[in-house]
């Protein structure tokens, strides 16, 4: 790139990055603020002040770790993180189990009605959870899953599978049929071809689905809140608003910390896989 192009690039990219990341940067600062410092309107929110509102060069002496400690020791936060990971992992596995064969079938085997069926399946995703959570509550209770993570593991695929099936369908269509033809001619069965030839090639597509499905699970909270009433069984999206917002009182600093802790690793992960993810998406989506 020319020097001019580089400058222009930075001029565009940096403001975007600032806009997108600023809330997290600010959350990071707020996490370590003392209560009296936070409550004082005159104090600068960007740094740590003493009681009189003055700044010091050794600002870390006026910050506190108390709210992070509170989060980890006086709430069920570690449990919630674990629960979220468990639910996410299980749902991703179920999603792949259901969506991979379905997507493949729709791409390869369904012929003319494949495209239409794929879109129809995607439309299932549009049904609002604020509507469904009541009858699903009954279903969950009758299966004896109330108050357990299994309730979420059962219900979440209802929105990850439509999404994933449609994505994978698009993706499989981009794999040249010749690959499988060759294997079939060699006498392998369809299923074997699927397993040995197609799957390895579609790793980017699978990665796409994994990231999307996991992200959908972590974000969901209506079902998470309704199906599970006891604090120690909750996921982070349900547990944090419930336990860190006590009616009149927001535990702001702990809330900030609670958001940063999953967000940063996930962002690192998504970023690391971004290139492979892009390959996955390019293949699929709209063909």
């Amino acid at each position, binding site marked *: 790139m020319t020097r001019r192009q580089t400058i222009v690039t930075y001029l565009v990219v940096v403001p975007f990055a600032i806009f997108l990341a600023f809330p997290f940067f600010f959350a990071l600062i707020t996490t370590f603020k003392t209560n009296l410092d936070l409550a004082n309107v005159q104090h600068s929110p960007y740094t740590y002040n003493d009681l009189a509102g003055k700044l010091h060069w050794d600002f870390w002496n006026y910050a506190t770790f108390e709210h992070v400690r509170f989060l980890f020791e006086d709430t069920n936060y570690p449990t919630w993180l674990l629960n979220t990971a468990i639910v996410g992992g299980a749902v991703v596995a179920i999603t792949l189990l259901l969506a991979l064969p379905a997507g493949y079938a729709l791409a390869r085997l369904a012929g003319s009605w494949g495209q239409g069926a794929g879109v129809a399946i995607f439309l299932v995703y549009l049904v609002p959870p604020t509507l469904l959570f009541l009858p699903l*509550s009954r279903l969950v209770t009758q299966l004896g899953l109330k108050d357990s993570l299994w309730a979420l593991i059962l219900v979440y695929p209802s929105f990850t599978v439509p999404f994933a099936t449609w994505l994978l369908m698009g993706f499989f269509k981009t794999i040249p049929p010749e690959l499988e033809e060759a294997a079939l001619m060699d006498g392998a069965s369809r299923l074997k071809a699927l397993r040995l030839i197609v799957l390895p090639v579609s790793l980017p597509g699978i990665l796409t689905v994994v990231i999307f499905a996991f992200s959908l699970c972590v974000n969901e909270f209506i079902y998470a809140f309704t199906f599970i009433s006891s604090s120690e069984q909750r996921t982070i999206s349900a547990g944090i608003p419930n336990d860190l917002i006590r009616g009149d*009182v*927001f535990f702001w600093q702990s809330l900030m910390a609670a958001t940063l802790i999953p967000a940063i690793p996930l962002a690192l992960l998504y970023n690391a896989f971004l290139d492979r993810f892009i390959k996955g998406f390019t293949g699929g989506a709209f063909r």
Partner: protein
Amino acid sequence: MADAADEVARAGSALTRSDLLRKGTAAAFAVSMFGGLSDRALGVYGPLKFAKKELSGELRIMTWAHFVPAYDKWLDGTYAKQWGEANDVEVKIDHINNALLYGQGAAEVAAQSGHDLFWFISPPASFQKQAIPVTDLVQEVSKKVGRMARVARKSTYNPKTKQFYGFPETYAPDPVQYRRSMLQQAGVSLRTWDDVRQGAAKLKQLGHPVGLGMSNEIDSNMLLTSLLYCYGGYIQNEDNRIVIGQGANRRGAIQALQVMKEIYTNGMSDEVFAWTAASNNQAFLAGRLSVALNAISIVRSAEDSGNQALSDDTWLASIPRGPVQRLGNEHVMGVYLIWKFAKNKEAAQKYVVDQMLAYEDHFVQSKFYNFPPWTNSVEGGFKTIRSLATKDPHKPKGKYSILTTIAEKYTTNPGHPGNSTPVMDEIYNTFLIPQMFAQVAQGKSSPADAVSAFATKAQQIYRKWHNQKLV
């Protein structure tokens, strides 16, 4: 009992990190693998096994996360355990954010399964078909401790079905909390709403405006309803018909709207439209607001904040008088429902009755937030309550005494002079009252038009519930 003390201590104090990780991880893993064992998981609230004894029954209670956290600690760790042991029942209490109680309730009804006792922060009239009537329990308690307070009776009795659909557990009066130094400095009195109207501008000039919310949240709902009462702008009449659109009620409502508009224009800022239930607390504790109408969580938080000056300067007062009367809404009306599908109805019924026969501890442990729906549940009635309140050590001495006066004389139920009907429930939950006030305050509607629009909507809601034969 050593074990009991251990359990209480553990539930009450912070678990060490390794404790929590160990228990939390193990419990979570067990739970996720064996859903049916979820009940057996350990948690910070509601320990399940009492000492070494296996209790024969189980009572599951859903309630709110109390605005005074110390109360929940005591309730779960001491009261529930003791009651459970005495009655051979394992008591498990879940707490959720008060805004989400209705959603949770709806889900349990849809599932026809859930907790035995479900607590609501305001009379849950819309759910009454799903609960067993508790008229017999009410009579039992009344026989033992005397008549129930009017506010509780009107909140939980349905004249159409002639039954008490819910068991009242507590109510919280809604006092004015103000910074005495600021009001003295500005020369403002809070005796009447007219005083407030005139004083608001002076306080704003001082940099410390009054904080009367017009937002989509519970504080605003309650205070604006109280304002309507003071001006005689009743929404319902004694027969639960919608009357706000006509006659004296209409005039009163229009007056109230005008007063609020003036107070806002001269004495408040836009923030009052953006509030959550916590915002007026925060603004008051930050030293910004001079006046707020809220349950005592503000003044109690001030005491806990470590800001002695602020706490000493925070005084309580009753709601200002309007041209018609001095009357306020309760801030919280806690009502228990016993679901039709509750598994342990007997334990539920005994629990609520027992609690009401000896309410003094609840009153004290909640730092006077929880007032008893049967006044004599605290032995000695209002006399004892007042003396307890007056003895509160925080400065200025005796400041909580006015709370008793408010509870005794100036507190009523939503829907006064009628009952707390599902119509009122829906009006509150769709925030039609703050909407009406805020539209007028921000100049988007004239008071007359706003009242008419509100009355029309209220009528529609009335028709809907009338067809359900609930009102």
